[in-house]
């Protein structure tokens, strides 16, 4: 089971419309991705909370259809 990078990006943006999302396919196998998500809605949230917001956007696919997504999250610099 693999996921398309565009599909991952769309899921995240559907949930966090103000986010800047950058996805890299690490192994070229559609199964190992790195994502950087920058969103103003992360402001004041802990890293764990920020990641949980992205995982929520992925609606249970993380750890399932999506085996490996290395995640970096941040609120934008002002």
């Amino acid at each position: 089971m693999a996921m398309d990078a565009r599909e991952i990006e769309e899921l995240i943006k559907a949930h966090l419309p103000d986010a800047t999302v950058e996805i890299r396919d690490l192994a070229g196998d559609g199964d190992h991705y790195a994502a950087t998500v920058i969103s103003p809605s992360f402001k004041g949230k802990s890293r764990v909370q920020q990641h949980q917001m992205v995982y929520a956007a992925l609606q249970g696919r993380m750890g399932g259809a999506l085996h490996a997504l290395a995640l970096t999250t941040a609120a934008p610099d002002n």
Partner: protein
Amino acid sequence: MSNVHAFIDNEVKTNDVVLFMKGTPQFPMCGFSGQVVQILDYLGVPYKGINVLEDESVRQGIKDYSNWPTIPQLYVKGEFIGGCDIVREMFQSGELQSFLSEKGIPVRVPEKG
């Protein structure tokens, strides 16, 4: 509260540093678990490793416990710190070392060079 939840809760609260992982600290069975083991070993942090592959109910239970979909998961003094990405990010910035020290966990500062 299920037995699994009680088991996890007890492990998290009675051990200063607990890592729920795939495999053991000696033989990690997954690259992500292995990375966290390497970081903890590098810092000389005493911790307990719990192999979720030995018990399917713990493997699922820990995800429910923390509302976190992946393994490994690191806990310090009862608090969920994060998975591989967060631990690595904190280690690289030096935040993990100072956080552990603040919590009274012994951290070895490797000599430079």
